[in-house]
Every structure is written in C-alpha cells, then in structure tokens.
C-alpha cells in the first residue's frame, strides 16, 4: 500500500536525502568487516558500562587430577559441553565432533575445551583419564572434569544455559543437551551450537577463529 502511495507522489527532497543517508549507512556497515558474534544472556547497564552475563566461579578436577577453575581459562577462549562416558545416545557423536574441534584448533594454545561429566559418581578422575587417553587426547588443552554433581548441574543450567540433570526414566539415566558453548576471553557466552551436527560444528570452528581475531 505504502509503495503505491510513494509511487503516486514523487519523493520530496527531504525523503531523498534521508534515503541516501540510510543507504550510505547501510553500505558503510557492510564494509565494517563482519558482524561480531552475539553476547548471550542478560545484561545490565551500570553507569556507562554494560555488564554482561558471565560464567560463575567454579572449581572442578580434570583427568590429570588438576584443579580446573575460571582461572584455567584466563585470557583463553574455550568450548564447553556436558556428557558422560557411558552414554550411548548423543555423547559419542558429540565426542566425535569435539574431536574435530580439538584437531582444528591444534595450533591454537589460546583455545581450550572443557567437557563436564554429568555422572560424577561413575566418571571418576581415573576413568576420565582413561577416556581422554582412549579418545586420543594428549594435550592439556582439553579438560575432562568431574566434581560435585549439584555444582555441575547448576553451572550447566545457570551459567551455560545448557540442560543437564538426572532422569531415571531415561534408558541411560540422564537428560542433557548436546550443546557446545563458545566462551570468550571475558567468560561470556558467544555462541551455542548443536554438538551432534557436523554443519553446526563447522560454524563453531569458523566462529572460534573470528573470536580470536576480535580485539
């Protein structure tokens, strides 16, 4: 309808001016490299600063019996996920895909991986060590962590917006999402990908590079 109206009445000079300004802005914004990755979660404006959602403080133990905390990822980018070693449904696919991420980031010491078990009673440090070893993970860039069950579930749900909980009605006893979360150097979530889909993981690998180049 509006189109017809403007067609009937030639645009005024003000309209033309506005149009050219708008198209100039559009063209300029296209030239400014690519759109930065989104920042997930709620944000608050405090004075002139924007405070973003960040990963809450945590302390877990990895496959080498070392403490893994927020500090482990200081000035690093990391990818987080939730799994358990005896899961037959989506975890093996997730691990196949995460292995691709691990290999694609082999020469990036600033990119790490954090895999949380959601079955810490069964997945002990020794078992995670064996699991990592059998998966072919040699470097310390990929942490397989265990800890207090409730802390793991809580951080999954409140910090990473991922699903992880026990459910005895499930054949394997747990419900969890197959999400891979991309966390930036400021501990903010910058991407969420389906870790069971190859194309999504391809995008994650591209986004990791994008995030590394971010100033």
């Amino acid at each position: 309808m509006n189109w017809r109206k403007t067609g009937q009445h030639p645009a005024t000079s003000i309209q033309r001016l506005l149009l050219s300004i708008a198209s100039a802005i559009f063209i300029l914004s296209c030239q400014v490299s690519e759109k930065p990755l989104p920042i997930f979660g709620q944000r608050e404006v405090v004075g002139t600063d924007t405070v973003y959602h960040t990963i809450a403080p945590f302390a877990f133990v990895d496959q080498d019996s070392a403490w893994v905390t927020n500090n482990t990822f200081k000035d690093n980018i990391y990818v987080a996920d939730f799994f358990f070693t005896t899961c037959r449904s989506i975890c093996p696919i997730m691990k196949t895909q995460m292995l691709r991420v691990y290999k694609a980031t082999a020469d990036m010491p600033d990119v790490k991986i954090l895999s949380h078990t959601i079955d810490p009673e069964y997945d002990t440090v020794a078992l995670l060590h064996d699991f990592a070893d059998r998966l072919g993970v040699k470097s310390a860039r990929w942490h397989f962590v265990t800890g207090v069950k409730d802390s793991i579930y809580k951080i999954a749900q409140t910090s990473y917006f991922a699903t992880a909980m026990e459910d005895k009605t499930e054949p394997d006893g747990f419900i969890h999402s197959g999400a891979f979360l991309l966390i930036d150097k400021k501990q903010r979530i910058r991407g969420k990908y389906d870790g069971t889909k190859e194309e999504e993981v391809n995008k994650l690998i591209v986004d990791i590079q994008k995030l590394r180049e971010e100033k």
Partner: protein
Amino acid sequence: MSRAILILIFFIGLLSSCVSGNSDKPAGSAKYQQYYVQGEVLYKNYCSNCHQADGSGLGRLYPPLNKSDFLTENFASVVCLIKNGVSGELIVNGVMYNQPMKGNPALTELEVAEIATYIYNTWTNQKGMIEVSEVTALLDACGEN
C-alpha cells in the same frame, strides 16, 4: 502411518519368504535385501553413534566393525553382545578396548539378525545373510562358552 509400514514390512517378509526358499545365494534374495535395509536402519539407531556410520569406531574407546578381526573371528559372541552388551577388556586388531557396551534387551531375534546381516555385509565385510534361526540358536547359547 507406522501401521502401514508394519503391514508393508509384513507383506515384504511374506513375499521374500517364498523367494528365499529356492535361493542358494541369499545375498541376492529379497529376504536378504529386506534384512539388510532394516539392519541399516537399526544400525543407525543403536550402533552408529559409537561405532560410526562407516564402522571405523572412535579412537581406542569404541572398536571398529570394519576390518575388525574380532568381528570376523567371533561371530557367536558378536550376536550375543548385540543383544546382551559386553564389558571388560576386548582385543580388536591387537588394540585393547575397555568401554562397557550396554545391551539392547528390547531387540527381537529378527532385529538382531537384521543388524548382524547389515554389519557382516557392509564396508569390507562379506559374510552373507544371517538367518533368524542361527541367531535364535546363538542367543540361546550365550554365556555358555
């Protein structure tokens, strides 16, 4: 919808049971085709997450089904573990695997035969059709040896 598929499967089964009777080479029979196609669907549902679509396994976690000496040499055990699972150390191609595999007790003997037919005739495996009667006998004997 699913009922229609079931009826179709039943009909194909009925049809192929006539064909396979006079077939010396089950690999070309309609029954074989049916087992193979069904087996592929079941494989994707129950097995490929760990053993991968190409049967290559994953690291030293999940053993390969393609080019696997274990598969070739332990047919009876493989049929049993498809249904009952397996745990403890397992040597495949000289590599020790030790990831427990849970059983799939809900699988019928027909379904086990279909999965076995699929994995034993895919990639480089060429064992030929696995009959339900073979599976029944092997499942009955599970744990005895």
